[in-house]
């Protein structure tokens, strides 16, 4: 199959078109803007909808309306923009509307910077806005996965009637790699709940207001059951040489590729190192961690943040082994830098 060289943001946008995305609603923000620019070029000639919204709030609410019609719709932004979108995401989660949301993330808090980061992990994996909800979070690690996870994201969104978040470090949005273009997807989901005009049926209502406490609880229980089902079926992780590992690295996204290199180098130096790469950040692949904790001496959480995923690792390890952190912000560490951290840990644990 022929491969073409593509930028991560453009591969993601092309993936959305392959998945049958009918509308893009967005607002410019670095380092995600190429997604909107790509859609502005490609969608109108195909008769598809592109709207540059006046704000992130408007963009996510256009997604709310668009998703309510039953068509595949999306938005893309970065950290500060995602903060603004949280109101809408909470409504969309409760209205159970499928849609795709992208965070090409940068460092915070506040305006932070435009360098790569993973510090929106808490926001992404804890729902993000008000109320008791989650979104599925997919973390690609290559430009190919920017395309593939976007396609899968739309499928997951329709399968579970839930917003799906694709979250990637800014670097992954900006860098180029060869990509195999996937075949077009024909969305095949019945959406009898969609608001399209009530010709020939009773009116449909998309609503998130539940004034009766009993019904409000019923709705929350319903969402809880759905989230349990997603947890049971959709946890995904990749493991690398974990079976005999004394030190288990945990890293996601682009950083997981660097962690893999560091693991190989540490193995060459005689240290038994493995890697778990969460592919879904929510639901978090806790069982993979739990299984590794049966033999691992120590876990090392590698993050481009001051330590957020480490809390999920600790919950999964449940006290069976120490969990250490190596975190940077705005900078992706080199394989050598991570190897040094592994060797220091090996020395401390008496593995050298």
């Amino acid at each position, binding site marked *: 199959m022929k491969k073409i060289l593509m930028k991560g943001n453009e591969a993601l946008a092309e993936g959305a078109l392959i998945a049958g995305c009918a509308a893009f609603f967005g607002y410019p923000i670095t380092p995600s803007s190429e997604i909107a620019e790509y859609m502005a070029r490609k969608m109108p000639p195909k008769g598809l909808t592109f709207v540059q919204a*006046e704000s992130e*709030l*408007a963009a996510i609410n256009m997604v709310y*309306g668009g998703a309510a019609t039953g068509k595949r*719709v999306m938005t893309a932004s970065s950290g500060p923009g995602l903060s603004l979108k949280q109101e809408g995401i909470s409504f969309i989660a409760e209205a159970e509307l499928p849609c795709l949301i992208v965070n090409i993330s940068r460092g915070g808090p506040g305006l932070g910077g435009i360098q790569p980061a993973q510090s929106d992990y808490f926001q992404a994996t804890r729902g993000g806005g008000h109320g008791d909800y989650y979104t599925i979070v997919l973390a690609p690690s290559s430009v190919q996965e920017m395309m593939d996870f976007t396609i899968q994201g739309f499928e997951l969104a329709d399968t579970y009637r839930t917003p799906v978040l694709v979250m990637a470090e800014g670097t992954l949005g900006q860098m180029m790699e060869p990509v195999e273009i996937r075949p077009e997807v024909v969305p095949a989901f019945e959406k009898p709940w969609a608001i399209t*005009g009530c010709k020939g049926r009773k009116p449909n*209502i998309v609503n998130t207001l539940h004034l009766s406490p009993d019904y409000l609880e019923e709705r929350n229980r319903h969402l809880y059951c759905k989230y349990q089902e997603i947890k049971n079926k959709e946890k995904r992780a990749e493991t690398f040489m974990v079976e005999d590992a004394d030190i288990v690295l945990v890293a996601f996204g682009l950083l997981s590729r660097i962690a893999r290199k560091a693991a190989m180098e540490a193995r060459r130096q005689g240290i038994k190192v493995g890697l778990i790469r969460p592919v879904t950040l929510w639901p978090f692949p806790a069982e993979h961690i739990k299984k590794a904790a049966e033999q691992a001496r120590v876990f090392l959480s590698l993050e481009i943040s001051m330590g957020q995923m480490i809390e999920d690792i600790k919950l999964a390890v449940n006290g069976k082994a120490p969990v250490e952190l190596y975190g940077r912000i705005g900078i992706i560490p080199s394989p050598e830098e991570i190897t040094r951290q592994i060797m220091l840990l090996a020395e401390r644990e008496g593995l050298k």
Partner: protein
Amino acid sequence: MKTVAQRPQSLTTAKFHYCPGCTHGIIHRLVAECLDELKMRENAIGICPVGCSVLAYDYFNCDMLEAAHGRAPAIATGIKRLLPDRCVFTYQGDGDLASIGMGEIVHASARGENISVIFVNNTIYGMTGGQMAPTTLLGQVTTTSPYGRKKEEAGYPVRMAELLAQNEGSAYICRTAVNDPVNVTKTKKAIKKALTTQMNGLGFSMVEVLSTCPTNWGLSPLEALNWMDENMIPYYPLGEFKVREVE
């Protein structure tokens, strides 16, 4: 026997929850009569606000969506862009539209978004218990302007119809009132004109309807209608501010 009046098809049989004397009920009925007369019920998608009319999805007998506070025009944009032949309308109050939703309404109008907005202005936040709105008149007492709205502290009431009429994207902008039968009739005509403007693809349309809130104004229903006539209409003049005709 000849039927001279009946419940519009576009209203459900649910009883309104509105306070005695509140004019939301009249405005709901006018919107429903217009949808009926234009044969639009099965083609219509309505978006309700946050505010007293948050439950409008129980009353309009067509597809409905309940929005976050102020965001109805953005949601309507998403729907209309994907279903351009549907009749998409929002129903919003003054706190919703002129305060927290100011960004969404101005840009929907600026884009010439082909939607219709029913804007109910009663100069106060009703559902939350009578707080000051951007439309509250100078001197008007509310729970958050207990000594009367002062221009030095809270500035001046916003005239939305005049403001949106400035936008090229606005095709039909009108202000009406429902304080007497003549004005009720005019309001119905304006709503029908707004919906027709949309169905002719001319651009953004809005009818600002001056409405009463006897409960939070602390007046009887009749006194409230008189208060509107004496205080609101002088500041919020009635009439058409923008009319784009089919070329």
